[in-house]
């Protein structure tokens, strides 16, 4: 989780990510930043996030992103 938070804070400095309830609806993560984030997550956690995984539910909160990482790591 700490590594994920570090990546998110590097991507969007100054955002209190754990406190956010909807990163997509609140336009904190747009399609550009999602692509950048996916690249970082793929490298950092050795996973492959495909376009099917790129849905709002998986990027809504830090917990949702973390759950997706866990799921893809187990696959």
């Amino acid at each position, binding site marked *: 989780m700490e590594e994920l938070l570090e990546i998110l804070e590097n991507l969007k400095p100054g955002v209190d990510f754990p406190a956010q309830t909807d990163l997509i609806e609140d*336009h904190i993560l*747009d*399609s*550009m930043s999602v*692509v*950048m984030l*996916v*690249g970082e997550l*793929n*490298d950092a956690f050795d996973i492959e*996030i*495909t*376009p*099917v995984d*790129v849905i709002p539910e998986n990027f809504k909160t830090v917990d949702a992103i973390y759950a997706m990482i866990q799921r893809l790591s187990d696959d």
Partner: protein
Amino acid sequence: MAYSSIVYLLPFLGAVVLLYNGMPKKYRWWVLLLASYIFYWLNSPTTLIFLLLSTAAVYLAGIFLNKIQDGFDLSKKALDKEGKKQLRKIVGWQKKAICACALLFIFGLLAFLKYYPFVSENINQFLKLLHLESTLPSLKLLLPLGISYYTLQAAGYIIDVYRGKYRADTHLGKVALFLSFFPQIVEGPIARFDQTADQLMEGNRSTYQNLTWGIQLILWGLFKKMVIADRANPFVAEVFKNYAEQSGVALLVGGVLFTVQIYMEFSGCMDIVIGSAQLFGINLPKNFARPFFATSVNDFWRRWHITLGAWLRDYVFYSVSLSKGFAKLSKKAKEKLTPFLGALIPSAAALFCVWICNGIWHGAGWKYLAYGMYYYGIMLLGMLLEPLFAQCGAKLKLNREGRAFRIVRILRTCILVVGGMTLFRAETVGAFGEIVYRIFTNFAPQHFYDGTLLHLCIDGWDFIAIAAGCAIVLLVSILQEKGYSLREQIAGQNIIIRWSVYLALILAIIIFGAYGSGYDQVAFIYGQF
């Protein structure tokens, strides 16, 4: 049979609602499918075959994808890890080949019917330059009604099945109805299979609320189309046709009025479309979210033609930017350049594909390509200059989240959008260049008040009707932007207030609508794509 025509609204839609509700629940989808094909045949009888071919192609491809997946699920149980890996690779290729064949077929039809005349003309001109005699034959092709919309729906369906988002549906009628549903076939919204297909098949009876809300929305759409868009049309048509004779002021007003016209017309059409579907209890995805409150061009495209933007994002932008090739490019860019440029270059390249597609989707012509590149250029510039803007803002101690700054950003976005719409409406890229040139070199500000503008096919009363209509739409939009649900508010009032609102809307359309002698029924602009 335009959606704003009496023939569509009363005999056609009325008869379908009556028949739909008169049928037993399990046969209601048949009414919708039959009505959809009749609607299509009445509008474009010779091109119905292309809709049927696209339907058959994605239906069959979906069934094959199901079979391959089922075969894999069955075989993998008996295999070890390495065996599964090998089989997954083979199955992956098989699925990719089937998906690619289906996409090639449906996009091939679209490309040939929509773009062949443009491509052949340009190739012939190029060959002429090289003094080569061989030329491609010029064919007069009929563009099938709604092909740009149903092709994207069909492609979205088959890509989703390929990606494993859901299984292909084995019910041919369901796939056929999803692709042909008559309210959305001409101008969208571009729906996804999991958004509308089940609703279309449910066959729920039209409730009182569905009927009243549907009629409300249809009336609101007619108001926007007939009172504002169609009334502005003669001015816009005149100014853009004879642009070389117009002053800068007339051209500028023409650009602004065309922006108003296209918004009122397209969003009005979407209101009629979504309202029509609501009569059957079917909720279509929304296509507009008050785009002129956008604070940036990116934000504008999140609010304007939402379903096209979402389609391009999900099937072009993510497909390209998350591909393995792009992952490598991104890695190399990060290693060799600054982290900012490393992150920017792959996104910029993927965005280029999106805007090329957006441009050519709108039409076969250089100006549409230029239209896509216009927005791409603005977005790219915005991305490149963002760090600089942030630095300047910090140095000047600007409150970038404040209300004043927000208003400035909204105005800036509106100006950029009017520029884009002017390019979109100009006959050619060259004509757009001349329009811009005349705005800056032959502005003639006195034309604002000396009555010149009142002699360009519409008079002062038309301008007053357009301005009053826009003021009403603006007021409603402000309330919606603040979170008020006007429809619920109206529905909650007593019968006198409720019906006063409805009657006022009907009277406004009858009294101020542009129709009858002196007005030709104006075809929906987005219906021609």
